[in-house]
């Protein structure tokens, strides 16, 4: 069984385009949440979101390519390019996988098309609508652009999508099905249809995202993409690659309970499964990047789950307070945050934190990062529909 390491990271998020602005903001506790600019929210019950600032596709794609890619796919393409170029890896095309996670597909394209159809009565549509809206368009873009010809697919498990994607890619490299993988997630939900649908669920905060705070009022929708390059450790060492961290465990579970209410038991079982897969005793986990959405229900349930798994509590933070909840892409953003935390010995905080909630009695690293080298960390993702996925990472000391 091979050990698997992260040798490349790429991010497009509300904190900017690239890993550097992402990590800089997370370390500083700076939130990317602000008024939504993509559309007029004056009729909605909320008006804040975590949008990618000033994303101009023509900076990254020629005009024709940009037109063929939905905004969500553009994000994935940019993040993948950064991760692959940064890793310096030379792929063996048929021995490399691409696995992406995406919950909702090309909503900006779909929303435009439906508006033209229903509101404007138009009868002709962008002929690229179908290949733009398909949920797997990001996997295809990465495969085609980088000439990767091995297993290539997309996982869709709502807000756990990218965690399931990264976990499967990790297992494929670990068990020798492939030698390397490009994996992560992408999402672009800032459309009127999506915002209205989220409004109807009454889980979006009218102010900001304050995970684990007593006065938290819900989640904040975000957008973006994150991609990592995974390689067999021996191959990475042999080529002198920069190793950011080791990915060492993946655990899944299903609540088989309620469609939207979280279950502490399901979450705890996923964390335990990831620890077993990593052959790590819980006492060795120093940090958990929480699912931490900032909803009343999640944060209490997740606190109970963490307390059930760990006799000695790890430090916990919810970086959604800074990059927002980018649905299926969130687990990838958080995986990158976890990898960088292990690499640099800096644990990002939970931003926007005000008062402690007795029902969330964890050290959530309020507002200010902590400089601590921890040995290993978990990244939690718990989706609507009760689908849970947890990734385990270990600090790599060469």
């Amino acid at each position, binding site marked *: 069984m091979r050990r698997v390491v992260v040798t490349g990271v790429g991010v497009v998020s509300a904190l900017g385009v690239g890993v550097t602005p992402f990590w800089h903001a997370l370390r500083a506790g700076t939130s990317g949440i602000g008024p939504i600019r993509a559309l007029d929210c004056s009729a909605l019950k909320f008006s804040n979101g975590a949008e990618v600032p000033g994303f101009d596709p023509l900076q990254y794609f*020629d*005009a*024709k390519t940009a*037109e*063929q890619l939905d905004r969500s796919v553009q994000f994935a393409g940019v993040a993948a390019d950064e991760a692959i170029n940064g890793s310096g890896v030379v792929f063996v095309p048929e021995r490399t996988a691409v696995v992406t996670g995406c919950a909702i597909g090309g909503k900006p394209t779909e929303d435009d098309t439906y508006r033209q159809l229903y509101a404007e009565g138009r009868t*002709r*549509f*962008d*002929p*690229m609508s179908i290949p733009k809206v398909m949920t797997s368009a990001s996997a295809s873009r990465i495969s085609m652009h980088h000439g990767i010809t091995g297993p290539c697919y997309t996982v869709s498990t709502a807000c756990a999508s990218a965690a399931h994607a990264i976990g499967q890619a990790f297992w494929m490299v670990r068990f020798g099905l492939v030698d390397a993988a490009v994996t992560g997630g992408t999402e672009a939900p800032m459309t009127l249809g999506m915002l209205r649908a989220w409004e109807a669920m009454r889980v979006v905060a009218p102010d900001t995202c304050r995970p684990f705070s007593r006065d938290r009022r819900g989640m904040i929708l975000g957008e973006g993409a994150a991609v990592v390059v995974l390689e067999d450790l021996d191959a990475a060492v042999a080529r002198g690659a920069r190793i950011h961290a080791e990915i060492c465990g993946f655990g899944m579970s299903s609540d088989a309970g309620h469609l939207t209410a979280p279950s502490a038991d399901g979450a705890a079982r996923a964390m335990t499964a990831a620890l077993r897969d990593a052959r790590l005793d819980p006492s060795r986990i120093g940090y958990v990047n929480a699912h931490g959405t900032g909803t009343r229900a999640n944060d209490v349930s997740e606190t109970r789950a963490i307390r059930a798994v760990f006799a000695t509590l790890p430090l916990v933070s919810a970086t959604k307070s800074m990059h927002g909840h980018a649905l299926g892409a969130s687990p990838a953003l958080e995986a990158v945050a976890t990898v960088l935390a292990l690499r640099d010995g800096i644990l990002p905080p939970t931003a926007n934190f005000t008062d402690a909630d007795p029902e969330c009695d964890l050290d959530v690293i309020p507002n200010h990062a902590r400089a601590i080298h921890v040995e290993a960390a978990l990244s939690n993702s718990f989706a609507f529909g009760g689908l849970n996925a947890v990734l385990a990472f270990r600090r790599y000391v060469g």
Partner: protein
Amino acid sequence: MPESVADRVMRVIAQAQKLPEGRVEATSTFRELGIDSLDGLNILFAIEEEFGIDVPDDAATGFTSVPEVVAGIERLLSSKTT
């Protein structure tokens, strides 16, 4: 002088393909212009908008050059007016 059908076709193809004006000539083939099957769909979409016509699928698949498109559009336009 109003823009001819051929001029309009060349302009629409150049816009759809993001090509500089003048690059698309009256005798250009799709192959010369690097137009593949997906590009062809975009061009048809743009031509239907430009001329306010529907290009039937069987006619559309036969287009491999600018003169073929121009001839096809002229046929469709004349059948529209009669």
